């Protein structure tokens, strides 16, 4: 049978191009992983004065797809499960950075279901319990920040802070204290700020797809660790 030459050449060229692009993508990922190696769990922990308690020390918060499991994605037989915990007391109060990303996949006859669990936060624990509060940036390039508590908004007494953040709490004195502490968090800029005080811990919440995104927020990891520790100290003595 006589087929035109392009019947053979085009599929081979397409296959070759696909393999080349995959190889190039892998190279680029490895390059980024190296470039941002100071955001690998082990190295970030050393920078912040935290110990790796749980998880893979080579997991890179800035280049998550450098991790083989994340790059491959969830399959019906194998879930993606990344669980990292760093903890320490770099500024005299217990501070931790936790990252949980689990994705399961179920392929049905006509639908594919992905179940996702995601929680990433840097948290400082106060010595004494304090009233709950929540702080969110009023504007971020990624849209509104999802609030986790049902508290009323209060003025902090600091117009610059009130213009930048929405502060919600039942306690006027706590709002005032936040007005004094929050200027430190302005350094996070467009990354966005989402602080939740649950009564004992102050957490900076980070997300996968909405502000504050993990990579953008952890770019300011030092500011975060100091700011959270300072806030926990002011709240709990």
């Amino acid at each position, binding site marked *: 049978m006589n087929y035109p030459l392009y019947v053979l050449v085009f599929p081979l060229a397409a296959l070759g191009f696909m393999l080349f692009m995959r190889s190039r993508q892998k190279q680029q990922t490895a390059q980024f992983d190296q470039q941002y190696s100071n955001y690998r769990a082990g190295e970030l922990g050393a920078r912040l004065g935290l110990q790796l308690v749980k998880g893979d020390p080579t997991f890179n918060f800035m280049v998550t797809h450098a991790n083989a499991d994340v790059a491959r994605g969830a399959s019906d037989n194998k879930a993606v499960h990344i669980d990292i915990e760093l903890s320490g007391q770099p500024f005299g109060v217990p501070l931790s950075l936790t990252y949980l990303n689990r994705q399961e996949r179920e392929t049905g006859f006509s639908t594919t279901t992905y179940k996702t669990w995601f929680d990433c936060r840097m948290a400082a624990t106060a010595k004494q*319990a304090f009233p709950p509060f929540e702080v969110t940036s009023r504007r971020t390039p990624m849209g509104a920040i*999802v609030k986790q508590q049902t508290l*009323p908004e209060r003025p902090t007494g600091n117009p610059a802070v009130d213009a930048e953040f929405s502060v919600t709490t039942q*306690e*006027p*004195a706590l709002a005032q204290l936040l007005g004094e502490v929050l200027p430190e968090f302005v350094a996070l800029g467009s990354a966005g700020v989402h602080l939740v005080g649950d009564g*004992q811990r102050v957490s900076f919440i980070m997300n996968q797809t909405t502000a504050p995104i993990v990579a953008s927020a952890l770019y300011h990891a030092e500011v975060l660790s100091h700011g959270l520790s300072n806030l926990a100290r*002011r709240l709990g003595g």
Partner: protein
Amino acid sequence: MHPAPVEMGHKLGTYRSSFAGIGWTIYVGGVFVLAAPANLFGMGAQGKVSPFSERLTMAGICLVLGALLLLPAFMRMKQVVEVFERGLVWQRLLGTRTINAADVQNVKHVQHTGRNGSYEEVELALKDGSNYSINGIKQADQLVAYVRAWGRASAVPVGAPAYAAPAAGGWRPPGT
């Protein structure tokens, strides 16, 4: 039957529906509805020669199919969810339902992605075993976060060092 009204506290937000995932339903439904009078009045070369009974049947079929497609779409479009500190009010085309925070057992946030568009669903499971699906609401993630906040407020972990307020507005920073 609505549950007994409770004081739901301050309103936290109002969430309206979006067109996400129902655009094609409205389009196809609209075409069917427009096809009904076109069939009935015998528009087009074929229509003019068809007997009236045949045109009436076709018009009826088109109208029913159009209504079947448009009704769920309009039901979704005409919904508003108002969230309060201790419950929510869900207004729909065919009535209003009040759900108290204390009655909610579980909430699930589902993102549907398909060829016909993507939309978000909030699945509420109540303690009496009933389930409600709120489909196509804008900012569904915030709605889910508030429902989860109700659960956290009611569930104080055993042994947790909870904050004991001296009085409303009575908290002072340590050392002051």
